[in-house]
């Protein structure tokens, strides 16, 4: 039974253009190096001959009769007076020259060998792959070029050398292209397959040009400047050079001028033809414009970032898009984006007038192209009538056009609040890099969005720019709203948890609002609640005749109704909390009963509360929660104020003494260890040499010192300290960072080892040779606040550099890896039944991910969160053993 397998393109074949074919496809023989006459008409048989196509509207092509948009252009040709080599085939010409006999034109291998190779190539039963064929060709070439005496005619061949870029020499004597061509003509068709050519479509002598194709004028259009001055394309300039030198060469040859002059002109022709193809040939000075700019010839048009492939074929530019700097705006919803009025007036949505929107569009047209007003009012830039003719709306004609409008007209309306747009930040590494937002037109010149959305875009505001695309059709808008809206992308397909959440000051603010349930004076509290979108206030409490609101009650306002949740916060496993209750966050019936809200509750990708709200109440409620949360945080922190500085790390004198003691003790312990090592008192640990054992013991001692300093610092830095609040709540930094500022920075390592490279037997000339003590190997006992001494500073810098190099290497490597994955997987799709198919409908997976689960609709990768269901159904009494 035969299994049919679907197929793609099997092979591409490249062939050479023969001189006859160049002549056959030519519409005109170009003989004049001029373009236009004084009246501006193209010269007959010149480079702009109308037989090669037309570029000016109104004129007709002499070959096909088509006008500008109908005629694709036609090639012309130049008859070269003397042959020249084609720079693109230099390598091939060289290898053919060295592997064939200059006398008889056969490959310089005995018939028996050739037959063997032929059999391999011709063997249809065991068809060779392209790579195997290429291998045979290069084997033939390398074998044959070694041979001196031709086995066929016994002629003694001489070695051919390539004098770059285009000159071939045989024993010092120059080989002219004409001679090369004559040699190539002698090569038999039968031998060509072993050289890598297919005799049906290519002959080696065609690599030497005798006829030169002139591309159509469409390829090298004349540019008319505003001044009326004409400017020719670079290719045309180069063609002028070729024709001019070709003419002079022909004249001199026909007159019988001295050989020297002819050779000079021949070389010059070779130069011009070479640079016409590639103006960056090594060993050739690039042809230049009068201004000194080097010409962009054929290869330059295709190659590199600005070449045809990367710039025009792989890259496309779009309309209805904008790009500007981004900045934060906590009062916008996470689903919104602030668009500058200036951009909104340029970006348009095309609407067709129907009975349903007729009056609205009329009003919009009356607004004209927009005025600078305090409140943004959208206008209309252009209107298209039913016949397609365009009217530009101006202040003057707006009222008139509005009256004339009919059903079916197309109105290019300016952007208004509520339009759906796509918002994107490069590099677009995952699908959350491009999400749909609702527009809010705002003053000033930046795009603005809610800070919670920084995470999926990986954006910050140190000058980042982002792109915005306006959707143009109803289908696109609907699709974007359902699939791409920010709130629909809460759960990351990477780990099935929320990728957005509170950051930095949001966490700090809400932590301060809920930690130990502070009492907030009623007036302040009411002002804070005015930031959020709720319609109730909590019951005030009275203390000493003054009325207060409790912090946790204020926070409870933004919780959806009926939240019941209990989980551990960041304070849970820390010894710092004296009563030990702040770490247990308990929410009952939508009220925060106990605990301080921190990163574990609302932080991005780990906020348990946020996760719960999303799963139980859905994306819309989740978005509302986060919107309110950011606003509330902004309200709280603007009232309390929050700042930090290096003096936050001030510790009392006794602490300083203790820290110094810890440092010295550690250094002494290391000394002791080294002494023991020298006296042979240290036993080897399994799998380690004696040196390794010592190293690991030293490392251990020193890291214990840092831990101890961290403890001391933590002890003296309390919860009244801004930096501690940030570290404990998870807003930014951790206690180790603080300890490094206040106490001991610790060991600086390279590749997990103590610093050891440098001079002979020592890291720096500041130490004795052979010193392997703590300081000599990169231990830093100073703090960032105190400052480092010179040797410490040096070690710190080397350790820091490792981190930087790591990041640079990692990003480039993972970027390339991801690119390869994307290219391999981009055509796969998930069918309606959940199968993963490729473009020919072949099965990749019978069920997506083998279990058919969409990770962004899953619970941390599992299809169902059983614990949650049990808890919802039976209450807490059946609480499972999970975590």
């Amino acid at each position, binding site marked *: *039974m*035969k*299994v*049919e*397998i*679907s197929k793609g393109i099997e092979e591409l074949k490249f062939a050479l253009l023969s001189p006859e074919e160049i002549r056959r496809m030519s519409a005109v023989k170009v003989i004049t190096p001029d373009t236009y006459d004084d009246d501006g008409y193209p010269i007959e048989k010149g480079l702009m001959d109308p037989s090669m196509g037309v570029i000016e509207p109104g004129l007709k092509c002499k070959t096909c009769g088509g006008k500008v948009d109908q005629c694709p252009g036609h090639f012309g040709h130049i008859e070269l007076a003397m042959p020249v080599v084609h720079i693109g085939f230099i390598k091939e010409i060289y290898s053919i020259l060295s592997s064939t006999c200059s006398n008889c034109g056969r490959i310089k291998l005995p018939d028996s060998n050739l037959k063997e190779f032929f059999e391999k190539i011709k063997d249809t039963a065991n068809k060779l792959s392209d790579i195997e064929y290429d291998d045979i060709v290069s084997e033939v070439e390398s074998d044959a070029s070694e041979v001196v005496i031709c086995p066929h005619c016994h002629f003694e061949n001489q070695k051919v050398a390539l004098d770059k870029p285009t000159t071939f020499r045989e024993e010092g004597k120059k080989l002219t292209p004409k001679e090369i061509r004559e040699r190539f003509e002698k090569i038999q068709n039968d031998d060509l397959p072993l050289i890598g050519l297919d005799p049906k479509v290519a002959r080696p002598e065609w690599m030497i040009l005798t006829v030169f194709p002139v591309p159509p004028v469409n390829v090298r259009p004349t540019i008319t400047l505003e001044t009326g001055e004409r400017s020719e394309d670079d290719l045309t300039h180069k063609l002028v050079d070729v024709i001019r030198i070709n003419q002079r060469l022909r004249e001199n040859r026909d007159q019988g001028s001295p050989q020297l002059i002819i050779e000079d002109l021949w070389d010059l022709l070779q130069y011009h033809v070479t640079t016409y193809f590639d103006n960056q040939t090594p060993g050739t000075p690039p042809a230049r414009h009068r201004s000194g700019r080097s010409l962009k010839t054929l290869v330059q048009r295709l190659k590199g970032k600005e070449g045809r492939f990367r710039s025009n074929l792989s890259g496309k530019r779009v309309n209805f898009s904008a790009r500007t700097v981004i900045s934060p705006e906590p009062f916008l919803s996470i689903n919104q984006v602030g668009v500058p009025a200036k951009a909104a007036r340029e970006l348009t949505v095309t609407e067709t007038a129907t009975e349903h929107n007729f009056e609205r569009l009329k009003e919009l047209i009356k607004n004209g192209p927009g005025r600078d007003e305090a409140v943004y009012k959208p206008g209309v830039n252009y209107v298209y009538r039913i016949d397609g003719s365009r009217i530009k709306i101006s202040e003057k004609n707006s009222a008139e056009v509005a009256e004339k409008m009919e059903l079916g007209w197309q109105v290019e309306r300016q952007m208004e609040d509520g339009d759906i747009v796509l918002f994107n930040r490069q590099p677009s590494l995952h699908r959350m890099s491009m999400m749909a937002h609702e527009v809010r037109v705002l003053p000033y010149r930046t795009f603005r969005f809610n800070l919670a959305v920084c995470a999926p875009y990986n954006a910050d505001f140190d000058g980042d720019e982002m792109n915005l695309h306006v959707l143009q059709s109803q289908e696109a808008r609907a699709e974007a709203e359902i699939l791409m809206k920010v709130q629909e992308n809460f759960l990351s397909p990477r780990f099935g948890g929320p990728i957005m959440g509170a950051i930095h000051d949001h966490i700090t603010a809400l932590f301060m609002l809920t930690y130990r349930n502070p009492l907030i004076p009623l007036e302040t509290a009411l002002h804070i609640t005015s930031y959020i979108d709720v319609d109730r206030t909590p019951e005030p409490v009275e203390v000493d005749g003054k009325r207060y609101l409790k912090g946790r009650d204020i926070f409870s306002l933004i919780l959806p109704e009926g939240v019941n949740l209990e989980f551990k916060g960041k304070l849970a496993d820390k010894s710092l909390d004296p009563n030990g209750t702040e770490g247990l966050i308990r929410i009952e019936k939508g009220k925060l009963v106990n605990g301080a809200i921190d990163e574990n509750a609302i932080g991005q990708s780990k906020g348990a509360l946020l996760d719960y709200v999303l799963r139980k109440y859905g994306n819309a409620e989740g978005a509302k929660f986060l919107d309110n949360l950011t606003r509330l945080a902004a309200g709280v922190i603007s009232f309390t104020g929050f700042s930090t500085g290096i003096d936050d790390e001030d510790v009392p004198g006794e602490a300083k003494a203790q820290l110094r003691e810890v440092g010295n003790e550690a250094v002494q312990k290391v000394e002791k260890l080294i002494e023991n090592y020298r006296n042979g008192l240290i036993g080897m640990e399994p799998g380690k040499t004696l040196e390794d054992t010592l190293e690991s013991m030293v490392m251990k001692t020193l890291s214990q010192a840092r831990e101890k300093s961290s403890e001391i610092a933590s002890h003296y830095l309390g919860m009244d300290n801004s930096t501690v609040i940030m570290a404990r709540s998870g807003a930014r930094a951790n206690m180790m960072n603080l300890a490094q500022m206040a106490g001991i920075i610790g060991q600086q390592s390279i590749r997990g080892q103590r610093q050891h490279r440098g001079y002979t037997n020592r890291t720096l000339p500041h130490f004795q040779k052979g010193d392997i003590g703590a300081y000599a190997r990169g231990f830093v006992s100073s703090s960032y606040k105190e400052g480092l001494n010179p040797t410490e500073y040096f070690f710190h810098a080397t350790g820091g550099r490792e981190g930087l190099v790591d990041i640079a290497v990692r990003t480039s490597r993972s970027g390339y890896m991801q690119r390869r994955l994307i290219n391999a997987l981009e055509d796969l799709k998930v069918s309606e*039944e959940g*199968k993963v*198919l490729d473009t020919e*409908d*072949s*099965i*990749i997976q*019978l069920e997506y*991910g*083998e*279990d058919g*689960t969409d990770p962004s609709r899953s619970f941390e*990768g599992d299809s169902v969160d059983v614990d949650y269901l049990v808890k919802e159904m039976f209450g807490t009494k059946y609480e499972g053993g999970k975590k």
Partner: protein
Amino acid sequence: MAKYNILMHEMVPEHWLVPVKEEENILKSLGVTKAQLPKIRRTDPVVKTLEKAPGIGEIVPGRIIEIVRKSRTRGIAKIYRTVIGE
């Protein structure tokens, strides 16, 4: 006979030759054609080993092989491959 049976290796998942009678049923339940399935070469070491198993004999192109393997997401995943020539 080779010294080791590769099917016994812990890293090689279970391979079963699907009886011709059952092929249609399986394809129907999966909703695919034979050509759509992933392929496995007749010269694949696993197929060659299967051929040597008692009562199986030559496995011609067009037969289906069932592979039962452990899956991180599903526990046990069954997949099918069509035998092709070469």
